[in-house]
């Protein structure tokens, strides 16, 4: 139950200046775990991807996964960070059943990457620089399922069940410096920042980057201060905000909540907040206190990591084109306007359009199909456009049939439905459903005569020069031919018949 007062976002912005900070955890997609050779696989039977190291048994010795180091360095480089000459691991001590060792192996005073930045492009093209404090390596914890109680949440649970398959999965935690000056665009920036980090790690191929699976997780810090004051306010940290939309909503909500607290003359409590997707609110977790005394100390079982400059340069040479540069290049290649391109990016079909063009479609045809046909279908099915499984070759074939006049656009859309329903290739569906543009003028002329006779007033208008009225007649013809006529040809024939030239 949430009883926190909130101010309207607009009022909060009039009175206060938000400062943000993010900790984004990225799960690496290495074959094995950070310190053990057990497989790093999602979704297997509980406690089958574990060995003695993951279960924290006495006397075991962790060994660092080289591929995880390489992935971490790549992330650091992509975030424009410096890579440490030497860094070490540390134990973060706490008691909780998700960590059988009673500590998490992490990095503390010597992260592998530090002092970077990321330029974030907002929806209107404004570029905002987010400074990166550090990116450090650590391991994920096991997964707890709270049983009993009514809600499945920890409150009221009778006991918990633990699966350690995720324990020891390599993580890179990316920490920003305090982000100032975003103003009323703070929620949008929050979403864009996490989206950019996700895109980078996906592009690098170092993470599956699926937020719904927890591959990328965000903790969002928010504080407010009166306009003009330099000193930061007290912050809250909203944990595990696990979708891009939720990041935006959580930051917005926390700004509104803090503003109401400050307006009432009370201090903001420094605490962890839990995000609730259903109500789009946060509730109080625990206050920061002694429990945060993690008593970090250097991990004695792991020796320092000292990446040679040569190794780093080798890794740098493998980095793919940065996402922002790639977007710029693609927009220029395709000749889309800023607005068209932004719509494509926001709809999440840039990769798909690139593949479709590579398969032989023109840039405008690829955009027409993805934005005009497929995005809408995906929305109806509540999936990402890419998940519908439309093959680039299908679009190329459909557009070729339209260009050759075999089918019209309306039929092509119908054929696409058939392809999505698994009825076969476009050619097979056209054949099976008997779809073909009627190109023999004979039946068309009959239909046109009938349509003109049915609407003599419209025919008169067209004769009189009001050519735009022709739609009603074309419509009648299309109806009579059940949509199988070539609308362009019908128009020509009607004008011919009525002796009108345009």
């Amino acid at each position, binding site marked *: 139950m949430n009883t926190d007062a909130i101010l309207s976002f607009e009022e909060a912005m009039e009175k206060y200046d938000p400062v943000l900070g993010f900790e984004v955890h990225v799960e690496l997609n290495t074959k094995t775990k950070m310190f053990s050779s057990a497989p790093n696989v999602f979704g297997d039977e509980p406690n089958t991807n574990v060995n003695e190291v993951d279960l924290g048994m006495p006397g075991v010795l962790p060994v660092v996964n080289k591929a995880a180091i390489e992935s971490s360095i790549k992330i650091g480089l992509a975030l424009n960070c410096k890579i440490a000459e030497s860094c070490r691991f540390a134990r973060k001590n706490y008691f909780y059943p*998700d960590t059988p060792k009673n500590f998490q192996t992490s990095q503390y005073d010597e992260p592998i990457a530090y002092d970077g930045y990321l330029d974030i492009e907002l929806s209107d093209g404004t570029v905002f620089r987010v400074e990166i404090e550090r990116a450090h390596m650590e391991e994920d914890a096991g997964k707890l399922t709270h049983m009993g109680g009514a809600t499945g949440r920890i409150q009221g649970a009778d006991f918990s069940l633990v699966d350690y398959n995720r324990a020891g999965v390599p993580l890179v935690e990316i920490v920003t410096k305090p982000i100032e000056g975003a103003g009323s665009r703070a929620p949008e920036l929050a979403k864009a920042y996490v989206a950019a980090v996700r895109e980078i790690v996906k592009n690098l191929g170092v993470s599956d980057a699926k937020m719904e699976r927890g591959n990328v997780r965000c903790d969002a810090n928010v504080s407010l201060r009166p306009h003009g004051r330099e000193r930061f306010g007290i912050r809250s940290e909203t944990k595990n905000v696990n979708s891009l939309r939720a990041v935006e909503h959580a930051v917005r909500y926390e700004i509104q909540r803090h503003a109401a607290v400050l307006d009432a003359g009370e201090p903001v409590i420094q605490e962890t907040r839990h995000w609730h997707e259903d109500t789009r609110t946060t509730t109080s977790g625990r206050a920061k206190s002694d429990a945060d005394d993690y008593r970090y100390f250097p991990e004695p079982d792991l020796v320092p990591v000292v990446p040679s400059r040569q190794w780093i340069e080798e890794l740098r040479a493998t980095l793919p084109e940065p996402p922002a540069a790639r977007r710029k290049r693609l927009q220029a290649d395709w000749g889309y306007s800023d607005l068209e391109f932004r719509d494509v990016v926001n709809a999440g079909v840039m990769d798909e359009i690139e593949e479709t063009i590579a398969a032989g479609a023109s840039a405008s045809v690829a955009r027409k199909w993805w934005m005009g046909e497929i995005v809408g279908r995906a929305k109806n099915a509540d999936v990402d456009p890419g998940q519908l499984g439309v093959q680039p070759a299908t679009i190329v074939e459909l557009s070729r049939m339209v260009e050759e006049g075999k089918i019209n656009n309306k039929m092509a859309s119908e054929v696409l439905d058939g392809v999505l329903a698994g009825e076969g290739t476009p050619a097979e569906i056209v054949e099976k459903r008997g779809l073909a543009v009627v190109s023999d003028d004979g039946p068309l002329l009959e239909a046109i005569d009938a349509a003109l006779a049915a609407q003599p007033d419209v025919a008169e208008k067209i004769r009189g020069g009001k050519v735009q009225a022709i739609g009603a007649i074309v419509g009648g013809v299309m109806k009579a031919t059940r949509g199988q006529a070539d609308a362009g040809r019908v128009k020509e024939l009607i004008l011919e018949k009525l002796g009108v030239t345009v």
Partner: protein
Amino acid sequence: MAAINRDDVAHLARLAHIEMSAQELDRMAGELAVIVDSVKSVSEAAGDDVPATSHPIPLNNVFREDVVGHTFTAEQALSGAPDSDENRFKVPAILDEA
């Protein structure tokens, strides 16, 4: 370094989930203070030319290739667990301290 007092020991005991009696706290405060003082004498011996280290062996970059090795079955993994259910470790519900 400030001396270890009774409150420090009580704080550490709480963090380490160790229950200690009043007498134990008193005794441990004295003993820990002696230990910390003893360790401190090391820094008197080391001059400014000796860098601090967390690893006494001059070794670094000990890595493993990313190749899948052995795993336990769920049955083996759970064989030492006090309680289990649905192939998972069963633990009392604990409020999040992580």
